[in-house]
Structures are given as structure tokens and as C-alpha cells.
């Protein structure tokens, strides 16, 4: 290792990072097991993996622990880690029709093939603070698990299958607008090349799949409230596991495991194009790692919105949506204002002082003229 030049700043940053580490553990409690974070902070893990752009629950748990629970920071750590990994294969595209469904609902039809499957959702619970959680014990958990286990009929497990999709109903009836394939010909990899505008749909969807949930939510919500006026209906929202496959050297497909994803297909009315074209439905698409329904709902809303540019509607504006929902970049840049800017400030200061001087001088001259005129 070469000689490292050291100045006062180095000592300061070392001390500051040591202090941050001290704050993480200063109350001297039992360290949280990474396994506990992974299993009991399921939704936080899913957010971190989604925004970090890597499916690795265990690493996400470590990142969350390291970042004291800051989801943004944890996602950033994962992103940085991800770039150090060699990419040996590209998986074949996943087929959500073969999803092992854990939850699937449709808002557009009362009954759908396979029925509405509520699955694990907190949607229909009262959000009262459950103070009993403060004293939860391992025994409580065991008891609860046994009760759940007792309710399962092992024979029925065999019946669980994959399900047809709601959008297929619309497609078969010819209600969906035929997609112009020219937009989707080339699959862009946003991690390998900078996004260009207008961005193809593959790039838009990739950007949103890694985007920050809150950012997507703000813009998706703005679209629903009237800035752009997409009127979406959830065609189908599903959460479950899908198999992943890669092609080996001989071209054979190999199953390499499964991942959890949430998918949303949002039905919206399309803008009538040319005269006498019927107002078809279009599908806005959302897909993300893990279980994150807010994200896919907003993603699919924005996917629809971005396909119909409209003045004054941020959600319909590709550049606006994609640049500003990129959480890792947005967090980095907004926080960079903490860095010293005194040289640039000096530059503005010099201008402003000169400008104020000029204005003072001009006022004095004007005053002198007024006095001269009144004599």
C-alpha cells in the first residue's frame, strides 16, 4: 500500500464514522440476528431488494442492520454491492402465468378464474396499535404457528395450481388495444447504458422496477387526483413466487430457483387516436421484487400515464417520472447539499455584492438628479 497523505479532515471523518457506529450500538442491547431481520422485517427487505436492484434477502438484511433501518441507505449499499458482482447469465424472462400465487385480486370483476385470493394482506384490518406485540414471546409464536398448521388440509394442497389471467378475458374479447411492437423491439439494459429520451418501454419499466416506492407513490397519486387524469382499475394484482431459468452453454433451459414478485396489471381506457377508432382498453404494467403492492400499483399507473404525454401532468412526463423517482440518485444528490460549497458561494457572493453596489450607486445618482430638478 502506497503512502496516504493525511490531513485534519481524515481524522475527522474517521471519528465521525466511529461515532455513527457507536450510536448504532450504544444502548448495549442484544444484537439483532440478521435472520430475524430477514424473516420478521419481510416488507422492509423487499423494499431494499427492489430499490437495490438485486434479489438477495440475506444481503438486504445485513444492509438494513448496517444502516440502522434506513431503507434508502440500505438500498444504496445493496446497489453498490451489486455492481461488484460479475454477471454470468441473463435469465430467461419470467412468466407470471406460472406463478405460485399467494395472493391475487381483481377490482374489475366480481369473480375471476380461480377466485379472488386475498392471501396475506393487512388491507382489511383495523390499524390499531397492537401493544401485545411489546411482550410477544417465542412461545406465543409457536402456539400461533401450531394453530395455523392445524387448519391446513394437506389433501387440498395438491389442488393449488397456476391461474389464468384476468387480462386474458379482455384480450380474448378483443377489448385491448393492440400494442405497437416497434416500441418494445430492443431490450435496453439500464444498468449498462444511460437512459435516453424518449425511452423505450423496456427502459421505463426497468427504471420504475428499481425506483423508490415513495417517489412512485407521489406521482402515481398525482395522476389519480387529476394531474393527467389516468383512471385506472386494477385488472389483476398478484403476489407469489415465479421460477427462474437460464440457458446453459448447450442451450438447455435450467431451473435455478424461484423469487417472489408482485405484479399489477392496471386497466385504463386508452385515448382515442384517429377518427373512428374505438376507445380500447390498455394495460399499465407493474412488477417488482418481493411483496410491495403500493409500488406495483403506482408503477402500472405511471406506465399508462407515460404513454400519453400531456402538458402540465408530471406523471405523464417520462423525464420527470424516471429521473426523479430514482431513489439512490435522488437521495445522493439532495444530500450532497451538505458538502461544502463555499467556493461556488464565494462566486455568487462576489456577483451579488457588485450588483447591490451598482443598485446603490444608481439610487444615489437618481436622488441627485431629483434634487437637481427640484432646485
Amino acid at each position, binding site marked *: 500500500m502506497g503512502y496516504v497523505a493525511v490531513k485534519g479532515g481524515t481524522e475527522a471523518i474517521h471519528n465521525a464514522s466511529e461515532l455513527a457506529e457507536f450510536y448504532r450500538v450504544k444502548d448495549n442491547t442484544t444484537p439483532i440476528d440478521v435472520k430475524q431481520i430477514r424473516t420478521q422485517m419481510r416488507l422492509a427487505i423487499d423494499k431494499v431488494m427492489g430499490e437495490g436492484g438485486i434479489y438477495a434477502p440475506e444481503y438486504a438484511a445485513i444492509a438494513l442492520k448496517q444502516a440502522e433501518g434506513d431503507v434508502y441507505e440500505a438500498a444504496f449499499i445493496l446497489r453498490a454491492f451489486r455492481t461488484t458482482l460479475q454477471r454470468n447469465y441473463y435469465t430467461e424472462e419470467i412468466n407470471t402465468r406460472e406463478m405460485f400465487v399467494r395472493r391475487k385480486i381483481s377490482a374489475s370483476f366480481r369473480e375471476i378464474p380461480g377466485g379472488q385470493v386475498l392471501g396475506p394482506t393487512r388491507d382489511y384490518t383495523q390499524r390499531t396499535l397492537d401493544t401485545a406485540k411489546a411482550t410477544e414471546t417465542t412461545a406465543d409464536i409457536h402456539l400461533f404457528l401450531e394453530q395455523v398448521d392445524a387448519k391446513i388440509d394437506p389433501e387440498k394442497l395438491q389442488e393449488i395450481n397456476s391461474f389464468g389471467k384476468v387480462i386474458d378475458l379482455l384480450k380474448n374479447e378483443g377489448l385491448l388495444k393492440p400494442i405497437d411492437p416497434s416500441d418494445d423491439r430492443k431490450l435496453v439494459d439500464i444498468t449498462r447504458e444511460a437512459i435516453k429520451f424518449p425511452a423505450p418501454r423496456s427502459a421505463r419499466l426497468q427504471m420504475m422496477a428499481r425506483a423508490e416506492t415513495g417517489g412512485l407513490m407521489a406521482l402515481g397519486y398525482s395522476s389519480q387526483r387529476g394531474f393527467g387524469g389516468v383512471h385506472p382499475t386494477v385488472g389483476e394484482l398478484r403476489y407469489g413466487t415465479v421460477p427462474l431459468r437460464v440457458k446453459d452453454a448447450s442451450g438447455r433451459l435450467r431451473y435455478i430457483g424461484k423469487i417472489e414478485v408482485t405484479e399489477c396489471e392496471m386497466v385504463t381506457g386508452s385515448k382515442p387516436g384517429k377518427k373512428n377508432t374505438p376507445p380500447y382498453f390498455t394495460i399499465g404494467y407493474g412488477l417488482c421484487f418481493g411483496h410491495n403492492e403500493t409500488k406495483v400499483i403506482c408503477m402500472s399507473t405511471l406506465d399508462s400515464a407515460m404513454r400519453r404525454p400531456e402538458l402540465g401532468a408530471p406523471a405523464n412526463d417520462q423525464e420527470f417520472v424516471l429521473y426523479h423517482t430514482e431513489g439512490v440518485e435522488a437521495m445522493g444528490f439532495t444530500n450532497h447539499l451538505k458538502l461544502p460549497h463555499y*467556493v*461556488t458561494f464565494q462566486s455568487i457572493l462576489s456577483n451579488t455584492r457588485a450588483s447591490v453596489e451598482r443598485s446603490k450607486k444608481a439610487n444615489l445618482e437618481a436622488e441627485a438628479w431629483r434634487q437637481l430638478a427640484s432646485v
Partner: protein
Amino acid sequence: MVENIKFSNKYNFAFIDESTKKEIRRKLLKAVAIPGHQVPYSSPEMPISRGWGTGGLHITLALIGRSDVFKIIDQGSDASVNACNLREFVNAMTGCETTFDTSKATLVQTRHRITEEELNENQIIVFQVPLPEPLRMVERYEYKTLQMHAEADYSKMWVSLYEAYVRYGAIMQGSGYPVMVNGRYIMSPSPIPRWDTPNLHQAKTLFLFGAGREKRLYAVPPYTDVEPLEFEDVNFEIEDFSKSACYKTGFKKAFLDELYADDGSQKYVISDSNFLDKIDSEEETHQYTNKYIDQLEAYDVERG
């Protein structure tokens, strides 16, 4: 026997993998070939925040070799906290020697300043760029600015400078003063003060600019014309330090930082920390010269 490699992670020399380094170098060659033109690139994530020097790091790490001597400054200072962090990162990932001495460095990374000492043909300086698009202040859409550059349609920019003059009696642009490179592209020189801007013109050194978050690279090759935008009758001006001098050395001919003491009293000090040290210890220095600095009579007396 299958080796358990879980949680074991080794980094490549200079952190970035070789194929991505190659991609960055290729894009840099393109940038050098078209001075002032912004070239999109992959901009992989770094373990450093976006907006905190990732673009500069990409260039540094793609170029650095084992024998390079690396210097990094922020606001002109070697001791600035973020510069210290990046210095340690580069050192940890390459083992390269680092230095404060401007004349000893082969590769200099900077944020918001050019060194006060003139860099030579054997040195490269890499700028961290927050906003690479000089036209962004007049046009918010990327697809439109791209077109404006392609057609060299810079009318909006000129109008905005004119409007500033009409309103405030001067072109109010502070740091990052827009420049015309090689008579073709308007370029943001990154937020360097106007004091540094003339030093880009016909320089001996290769200037490389990296905007990581915005995923753009650009360059000013040695001996290229770089002219600040100005009108025939309203000219580019550098910051005025004619009434101040460095409190440590009495030196006037350098970019100065304005300091305030506990009692509210104001004083100035040379911004470039290595230059300050050299002036303070009366070492030999070789400063940039340009017509703007030379014009200022107040700098006749270098030492007070």
C-alpha cells in the same frame, strides 16, 4: 470440494470490473475526440453517494495505473472531508501513492476548483460534475437540449445572459460559467469559480469531466480553445479580490476563501491548500497566468 464463498468478496483493482473500465475509457476517447460534447456512459453504482463525486471516481478508477500518484481536492482543499473519504477509497482499491503536492501528482481529481498551480502535459485533471448540461437552466428537457447541441442552437442561452444583464447590469452567472469549446459546443466547466475558467483555454493538460448521476462524460483536450460566453460590449469577469489579501501570507493573486471568526470579523485565506502551504513556506510555485488576472492592477504587489 466446493469452496464456501458466501460473504467472501474480493474487489478488482480500482474497484470497477475491467470490461466496464474499458467502456468508460472508450467513452472518454470519444469525449476527447469531440471536445465539449457530452457522451452518455454506463455509470455503475459506487459505494459513494450519487452526487458526491461518482463521475469523477469512474474516470479516475478507469484510468489509474499502479504507478500513478493521486491527488484529490474539494473546494481547493486536500483536507476537505469528502475528498479525504474518496482519497482513502482510491488508495484502498489501488494501493496507489497519494499526495497533496500538485506538481507531484499524475492524476488530480477535483470538485469546484482547478489547482492554482499550472498543470502540465504529463498530468490529467478529473472534474466531479453535478450538472453536465449547461443548457439545463434554459431548457429542462434532455431530449430538447440534445437537439439544441446537435444544431448548435444556443439562442436561448444567449438570451438568458442578455436578460441577466438587463435586469442586474451584469451576467450574473457565478461558478460554472458556461464556455464555448473549440468554437462548437457550449459546455459547463463544472462549478469552478470564474477565476479558474480562463485556465481551461489552450491549457497543457487534459481536462476530463465526469457526471456520474447524470451519466455523462466530456473532455477538453490540451491546447483547445475554451472561451467564456460574453458579448462584444459586456464581458466575462472574474471574481474581484482586489480589496483583500490572504491573512496568512499577504498574497493577493489567488482565489481566496472568506472566513469569519467567532467575533464576526472577516478575513481571507488562499483557497488552494497546497498552494497556500507552498507560499507560506516560500517554496517555488508555477501559477497559471491569464489575461484576466494580469489585467487586475491590484495584484501588482504579491506580498503585503
